[in-house]
């Protein structure tokens, strides 16, 4: 089953909803075998029937044994709202292997939507942005919401540059209900600027998670000879040598990650670094974990 969650395998599947279904079903079946973690449909407690309760939730087996009418309560029964902010800038199209960062981000978003809408019956919405908001699907639990979300993801081809301030401002104006906010990006910006842009989301009581998506080649670059590098967003070119890439670059990137992680967590948000060769189940675990906290 782990193989089905491998991004390289998912990249060979063309349909986004099929990818999401594969990921989530695989993840869920894995959870059933897990001894220490629950699921949203898991039984939580009984409460006495009161007038007006839905008879579908009455435990008729218990009624038969005790002639008392109790309703079954489940975890996560409280509906939540999932909002995903997907970075679709040019830098996201980089990929030294399948899938590219943009694709990995879409698989990730699709899987989260599937789980939220199909399994949790949460309202879900998406904002696709680069230097401005390119697509917006309002959070909803309506019929066909999942299809709309997937369609939005399909349209999210990378172009232009990244600018966090504008889309986040736009999102804040659209935010009416607290929920879970997930930002998926490669975060090529200074940690201060990122935190400064994202932090307001937290003020509205949202649970904010930053999924930092990077390619393995970005994390552990291998360069045997000097090369000319071109910036996918700005088009700028510079010539670099392997000695720098193998030493200084790694140090600076690691410092960037550490700073970002530290600052994000300092303001009460979650941070998760994801490499595009990493299975998606870690992401889903993170989401469920957030929901279980009851926030």
């Amino acid at each position, binding site marked *: 089953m782990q193989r089905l969650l491998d991004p390289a395998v998912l990249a060979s599947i063309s349909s986004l909803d099929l990818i999401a279904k594969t990921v989530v079903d695989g993840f869920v079946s894995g959870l059933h075998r897990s001894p220490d973690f629950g699921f949203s449909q898991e039984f939580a407690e009984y409460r006495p029937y009161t007038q007006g309760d839905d008879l579908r939730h009455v435990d008729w087996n218990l009624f038969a044994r005790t002639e008392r009418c109790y309703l079954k309560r489940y975890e996560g029964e409280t509906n939540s709202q999932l909002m995903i902010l997907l970075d679709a800038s040019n830098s996201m199209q*980089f990929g030294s292997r399948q899938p590219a960062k943009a694709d990995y981000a879409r698989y990730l978003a699709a899987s989260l939507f599937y789980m939220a809408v199909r399994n949790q019956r949460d309202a879900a919405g998406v904002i696709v942005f680069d230097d401005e908001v390119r697509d917006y699907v309002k959070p909803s639990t309506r019929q066909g919401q999942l299809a709309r979300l997937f369609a939005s993801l399909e349209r999210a081809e990378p172009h232009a540059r990244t600018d966090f301030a504008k889309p986040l401002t736009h999102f804040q104006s659209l935010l009416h209900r607290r929920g879970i906010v997930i930002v998926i990006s490669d975060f090529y910006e200074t940690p201060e600027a990122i935190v400064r842009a994202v932090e307001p989301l937290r003020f509205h009581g949202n649970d904010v998670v930053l999924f930092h998506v990077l390619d393995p080649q970005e994390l552990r670059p291998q360069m*045997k000879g000097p090369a*000319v*590098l071109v910036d996918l967003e*700005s088009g700028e070119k510079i010539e670099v040598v392997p000695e720098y890439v193998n030493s200084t*670059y790694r140090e600076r990137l690691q410092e960037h990650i550490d700073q970002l992680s530290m600052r994000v967590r300092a303001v009460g948000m979650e941070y998760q670094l994801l490499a595009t060769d990493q299975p998606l189940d870690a992401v889903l675990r993170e989401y469920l974990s957030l929901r279980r906290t009851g926030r």
Partner: protein
Amino acid sequence: MMGFLAPWFLAGLAGLGIPVFVHLLRKHITVPRPVSSLMFFERGTQSSTKHHRLRYLLLFALRFALLLLVVLAFANPFVRRSAANANGRPLMIVLDNSFSMRAGTRFADAKREALALLAAKPHSQRAQVIALGGQVQVLTQPITDAEQLRVALDGVQVGDGYGSYGELGKAVRALSETEAGPIDLHLFSDMQRSAMPASFADAVFPQTVELTLHNVAKTAPSPNWTVESVNAPADLTDTKDTSKSRVQAVVAGMGTDETVKTVSLMVNGKEVAKRSVKVPANGRATVEFAPLNVGYGFNRCEVRVNGGDVLPADDASFFVVRRLDPQHVLFVHNARDERSPLYFGAALNAASHGAFVVQAVAADQATDIDPKKFAFTVLSDAATLPSIFEHSLEQYVASGGDVLIAAGVETGRRGEVPLWGGEHVKPRNVTASVGQVDFTYPALEQTEPGRDNGGWAAARFFYIVPVDTSLARVVARLSDGTPLLLERQMGEGRVLLLASGLENLTNDLPLHPVFVAFVDKASRYLAGGEELSGAKTVDSFVQLRSSAETQGRTASAEVVDPDGRRPLSLSEGRTARTFRLTRAGFYQIRFANGRSGEIGVNADRRESDLTPMSAEMQGLWTGSHGGQNAAEKKQVLGTNDRRMGLWWYVMLLALAVAVAETALSSRYLGVQREEV
């Protein structure tokens, strides 16, 4: 020393500019490598360029070397090895010891010069000594032993043979096939024009042979007189018959003015006649001595001209005349056949002028006759012979007697040919003429047979006895292919078989003139007188015995040369079939069949013409070598060196460089793909 066989390929060196352009002049094109952001990168240009140059210089050197080696391989390089080493160019010393070298001091000069060349040769150089006389004698193999070479060269004596440059060319062509490299050939000779073959190509040496001529006849050609030819009878029965008892000699002058010369005839060392004859300038004159009075037996005769020239050896011509009584021929015929002895006897008497006397005997009366008393025997349709006579006849043939058999009607009726043997024969009635005649056969010899097949075409044959042709030489056939005249060797003797009769019933041959000539030549051939006396040329052969099968059972042959020595050892005398007459003078020979003879031997008169070949001809010869001129020859031979091609090694090296270049460049390309 190094050179190129195809130097025009060196123009390909211009291609060396290609790697220079690619590696040093052309601007490096690097495919930009995209990254998400340059946020964490810094520029590093100087180090990059330095690294590029370091890395590609090795590839550049390999490509440069590859192109250079390929061009060199096509230019076909070679190195020359000096001839000073032991495997260098061999020396071939050819010393002319032909008859003409007897003139003046030619031979001594030639030998002295050859010895001087041999002494000057480097110790490690191989050399070979060859004598050019009546035949080309290879006296040594190519060796470095100077003493052995000197002894071989010193041992060469002047001979009486005819030296031919054509024969030399043939021998050298054969020898050069066993020698891979070039050969230095030094010819010490008088450069006679007459020694050059009719076809110049025969004298041309292979390209690997460099010819150097050492002309020992440096002075102007001296006048020379010689007795060019002598026409005298080998056998003489009647000294009064001037049609045969005479000697005709041709005296020739070469390079001479018109002169009156005295020509004398000497018999057994005594001058018996003398004539004066005016010999025109560079011309010939004929002298005749008649009658020829000689005693019985072999008479050693010579015609001598008072030459007074540089080559006295050719002033005399030797020949032997054998005087004998008329020889008896045993003619055994069928008792009922009276015609054949008549025709045969008349023809023989008319042709031989009494040299033969025919003794005709009926077959049934031949019992007590010993055929050994006769020159030869004729069996004319004698199908049935008395057993004693038949046995005597077989012994007679085995010991060297000769028999002519004519197979007439009686032979055909009996179905068996005496002496000849074979299966039962069935005679055929035919009407045919003579189709094929071997005019080289002594009994049928004609120098220029006419259109009528030498006279044989007119004869008609009506009755023929097909005979066994195994082990027989068919010398005449009828027009339908049936063998007519055959010869078979039996022991030391010969049997000549005419497959028809000698009378005019089975054919009309006796009525034609060719019959007389046939009877005459056949009689002389069977009597064997032709080889017992007369004259021959140096280097011709005499047949000591007839067949190889009888070796050891017959008496030894014996030869006494003009110096009184016996050149054949005892074992050679028992086995040798032929003997080569190598000296001018009188040879005394005892043949294996018991007969004795004496033969006068003369040098080939082409040797008497001392005129050297022209300087142009000599230049053409030394510079010939397959039609090339001297410059081309020089190019082929080099000076004193041997070539060794190197292109194979160069190409192997190029292959190794190509493999290294492929490995290195594919490694670079692989890196680039990974980076992109």
